[in-house]
């Protein structure tokens, strides 16, 4: 009897806690969706019911913002960053795990240490470098610093530990060169790892704000995050319009995640079965 009550109380606590966490996670999205249907005044008043201003907010957003250009800029940067980051970092992760050398671990640890350096410390040197290279106000300037990601290299190295060395041996006996092993065996076998990394890197690149804010100076180069930020920081911000922009900005990352979620979960669990 006492045991039964204890178990029920424990269950209540657990579900109560999980429910609270779920609420905290989901409420911002819910509020964002509701906000897009309300006027700015209603949002400020704290209205949490659907309103009738959706059409007005959408129309205002598309009037104020050159949406196709802004989304194209974001997509271009996110896709380019993701593809280049995956290419470079997976090669590096593979190399760190597969090839032995005297200084391998030292070099790897030094690379991991770069994770400790806050971006704020890198901003000014990066800006000077980009300035000297004549890349300020170009999308290349946004993409370049993201390519060599210590975290993604670390992730690929860890996942490569599960890549069977006998596959590499078999490929060598089959006549493949090292680059062919990477391209024709490693990449397809590790596709879940790539999918998981793709989602992480794509979301990071799509949501990137601080560095694009610094290097992208003209309106025709700006990304969606910068545009939403400028809408929100206007003298009289229209929060309904900001919410519409936020929803539209969230859609591509959601689409990427839903499209690849099965691979993502496999990649996180270990991609080689």
């Amino acid at each position: 009897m006492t045991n039964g009550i204890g178990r029920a109380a424990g269950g209540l606590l657990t579900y109560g806690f999980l429910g609270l966490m779920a609420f905290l996670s989901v409420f911002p999205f819910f509020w964002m969706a509701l906000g897009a249907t309300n006027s700015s005044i209603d949002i400020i008043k704290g209205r949490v019911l659907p309103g009738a201003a959706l059409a007005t907010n959408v129309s205002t957003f598309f009037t104020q913002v050159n949406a196709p250009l802004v989304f194209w800029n974001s997509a271009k940067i996110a896709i380019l960053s993701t593809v280049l980051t995956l290419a470079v970092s997976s090669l590096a992760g593979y190399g760190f795990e597969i090839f032995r050398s005297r200084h391998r671990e030292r070099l790897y640890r030094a690379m991991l240490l770069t994770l400790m350096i806050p971006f704020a410390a890198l901003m000014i040197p990066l800006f000077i470098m980009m300035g000297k290279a004549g890349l300020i106000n170009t999308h290349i300037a946004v993409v370049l610093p993201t390519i060599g990601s210590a975290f993604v290299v670390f992730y690929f190295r860890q996942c490569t530990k599960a890549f069977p060395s006998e596959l590499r041996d078999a490929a060598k006996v089959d006549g493949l060169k090292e680059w062919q092993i990477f391209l024709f065996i490693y990449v397809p076998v590790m596709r879940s790892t790539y999918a998981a990394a793709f989602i992480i890197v794509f979301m990071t690149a799509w949501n990137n704000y601080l560095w694009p804010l610094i290097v992208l100076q003209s309106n025709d180069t700006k990304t969606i995050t910068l545009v939403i930020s400028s809408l929100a920081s206007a003298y009289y911000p229209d929060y309904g319009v900001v919410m519409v922009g936020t929803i539209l900005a969230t859609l591509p990352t959601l689409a990427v995640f839903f499209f690849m979620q099965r691979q993502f979960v496999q990649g996180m669990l270990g991609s080689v079965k």
Partner: protein
Amino acid sequence: MSDLQLSRICKSYGSLEVIKGVDLDIKSGEFVVFVGPSGCGKSTLLRMIAGLEEITSGDLTIDGERMNDVDPSKRGIAMVFQSYALYPHMTVRENMGFALRFAGVAKAEIERRVGEAAKILELDPLLDRKPKQLSGGQRQRVAIGRAIVRHPKIFLFDEPLSNLDAELRVHMRIEIARLHKTLAATIVYVTHDQVEAMTLADKIVVMRGGVVEQVGSPLELYDDPANLFVAGFIGSPKMNFLKGVVEPGEGGQPCVCLPDHADAKIPVQLKAAAPGTPVIIGIRPEHFNETGAATLDVAIDMLEHLGGETFAYARHGKGDLVVIETKSGRGLKSGDRIAARFDPASALVFDVNGRRLR
């Protein structure tokens, strides 16, 4: 089919020498099995033949051509791995034809060879499946098929049956033996399972610590081991080893006195050992019988009834454990005292360093 020669082959990782001057001649069409305990260097030696490990010194020749620095794919070898190493993203057909595709073989020829190998290995219905849709035995057959389609001079097998269950292992062992007969191929096979070695090999190479201990046919190694290690490694259950001392026997024939077995005297044929020399007597469990002239008085510790035969684990006092195989052991029970008889001529004698004394 092809001849393979290893001449003073060495392999070192820094200061650690793992293969120490191996000399070996493998004739065309031979089935040679490398056996030895874990870490003895048998897989490393196989990988050196395959070109997957560099040869530190010595010469590796195939059909008289030095292969030390030749790319694995150009040595005329094909290898079957312990974990099968099938490409998981390709179908059985693609796995089998992959090496040929890379070698630039025409599509029709690839199809023909894959079909031929699939027929030999009964893989036809599985050609469009992915490896994850196959059982362990089927995967192993695909791995062998992948080797066959290349028409290699030499097949290399690295513990190919280790991942299979006991029943499947027996089945695949027969398959491999049949394959050797059908293809008349030169095969180098690594295993730590001496039953596989005994049943498959034309020639067994016993290795320990990077050194070849003995090379010979399975029965040569069984009947006439060169040392204590080979005697203990070949045969299951392993040979019994009893400590003794050489003594002068009747009529000038020396005998070995076994202090741990109530000073039992075993007459032996020895030319080289002087009286007083400490030795080790080796008796195989299956050499105990009911009519032998030599006797050990022992008490049974434990029994294993396998149906057809019984293994009795027995000892005299606190002496070494002796394993006795008997066909008539159903009536025995733990604690029974028995006189374990054997023919002294079947006993082998080794010195304390493990060298065979004759």
